[in-house]
């Protein structure tokens, strides 16, 4: 049982920032961003290459965040300049990011066995122990959650929270929809880059395919969390708690499945099943999840005034 918990925390905590980003776009912006699949692999690759070249693990973490932000900005630009819906723009970006990541890493897999991590930078060789890794991850994740909650409570964060539900009203209050698209995608993919870097450092390797399935897994985790906490748009503390608990619950299910002997190849199936069950439970519990039940054509592209011009 303690092994189950340890595995859940070690594999789950790095994903909390990633799924926080998924929550931001899915629930707060009510949109779908598939860029995360690409920016997860990109962040992981950037982090691994930097560490492999002898740079510090903290610097690698920062670089992964920056690369994720850049990926998000690309998707936002595709959406804003060419009017491609965010769903499609994200798909295109993540496809391109596969090649970009491969260029950066030079090989499909980068091993970091024995390399420095954020944990060893603090604890020395003892930092390879489970307890030390979990402690460092927990502190980083806690900081991210607190910072994110604080951000949501700012004027800018409030505009973001209102924009998914009532874009017209937010424009009437003087907020540029375009600015919010850039902000939300940059932030969400920056968080994804951070999570990827943490994951790479705990796993000890990066793989160009490590992002595949991130989005669906994120949606599943987010829905689980929402099911437990049912946060409204103004309950910021509940929002971050929902993501934390949802992520860990979801990882707990996967790790548990592995432990009872489910072959690793079936895990993607379990992820999909988790998502379906979570959606079904939402339905049953009558929690509105507009982003999933609404036709995708009504994403942010159609929300702008036809007369709106880039300024």
């Amino acid at each position, binding site marked *: 049982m303690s092994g189950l918990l340890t595995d859940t925390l070690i594999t789950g905590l790095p994903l909390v920032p990633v799924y926080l980003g998924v929550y931001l776009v899915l629930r707060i912006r009510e949109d779908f961003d598939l860029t995360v699949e690409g920016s997860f692999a990109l962040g992981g690759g950037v982090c691994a290459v930097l560490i492999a070249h002898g740079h510090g693990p903290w610097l690698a973490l920062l670089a992964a965040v920056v690369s994720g932000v850049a990926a998000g900005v690309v998707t936002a630009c595709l959406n804003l300049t060419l009017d491609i819906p965010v769903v499609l723009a994200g798909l295109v970006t993540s496809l391109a990011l596969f090649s970009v990541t491969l260029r950066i890493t030079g090989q499909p897999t980068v091993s970091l066995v024995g390399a420095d991590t954020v944990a060893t930078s603090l604890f020395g060789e003892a930092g390879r122990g489970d307890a030390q890794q979990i402690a460092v991850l927990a502190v980083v994740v806690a900081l991210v959650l607190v910072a994110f909650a604080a951000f949501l409570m*700012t*004027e800018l964060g409030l505009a973001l*929270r209102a924009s998914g539900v009532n874009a017209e*009203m*937010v*424009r*009437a209050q*003087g907020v540029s929809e375009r600015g919010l698209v850039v902000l939300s995608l940059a932030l969400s993919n920056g968080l994804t880059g951070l999570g990827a870097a943490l994951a790479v450092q705990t796993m000890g390797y990066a793989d160009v395919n490590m992002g595949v399935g991130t989005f669906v897994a994120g949606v599943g985790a987010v829905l689980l969390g929402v099911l437990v906490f049912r946060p409204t748009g*103004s309950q910021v503390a509940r929002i971050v708690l929902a993501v934390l608990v949802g992520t860990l619950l979801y990882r707990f299910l996967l790790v548990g499945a592995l432990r009872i002997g489910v072959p690793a190849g079936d895990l993607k199936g379990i992820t999909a099943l988790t998502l379906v069950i979570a959606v079904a439970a939402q339905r049953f519990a009558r929690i509105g999840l507009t982003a999933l039940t609404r036709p995708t054509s009504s994403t942010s592209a159609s929300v702008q005034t036809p007369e709106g011009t880039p*300024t």
Partner: protein
Amino acid sequence: MTDYDPTETPALELQHVRIVHRAGRPDEVVALRGIDLAVPAGQLVTVVGSNGAGKSSMIQVVSGAVRPASGRVRIGGRDVTRRPDWRRAGDVARVFDDPRKGTAPELSVEDNLALALRRGGRRRLWPAVTPRRRVLMREQLARLGLGLEDRLHEEVGSLSAGQRQSITMIMAALGAPRVLLLDEHLAALDPATARRVLDLTAELARDLGSATVMVTHNMEHALELGDRLLVMGGGRVVADLPRALTRAMAPADVVEVLVSSGESVSDRSLLAATEAGES
């Protein structure tokens, strides 16, 4: 009523504004056929006209939701014709006809008000709701007499249409706009609630000193509140009546003006409005 100095820059000015929807297509509609209008600060203009007369189009061209095919829109003397709606929001507040449109239902009362407090200003990385702002919000909500000042944390979505529309009115007033736009903002409310929100409208318009444009199908409301009454038809202003003239008018007289201007007598909403006005 108040006298307005004609040499003063009007708070709101429309010059030869034309709006064409679906331009160039076989089903194109000319919604406004060259409107000229100057509204000084502090004046409340009521607008009546049958369905499709172009009232909402006029509101939208001022808010920036629609861009004119030709003509200019000036606010406080500044040409804003090419500015998108969100860049006019500091000067223009609007209340929609649908109570659900003016507020974010998932957010609390205080979050909605906080959003309006920064209308037109830069959104900063600063707490949106501070204790000082809460005091201001409570004060403003208390004017409504609905007890909403004690429900700051409740979701707006759980409030009634009248309560939501009242909050939207307070939100509109918070940013001290130069121009206040009200498009049938009482349409979804029951008579008693409509009365309350109407009184609030008169009070806010007076306090704000903004140029207020209020579209309504209720002739009584139009006569009672307006410093000036515009009658629209077919994309034009067919009559522009100052208070001095409207003071002596009854709802039926306004309908008479509409009818004599070539408007269809069989317009159902107008007939309904007349009946309501005479009852």
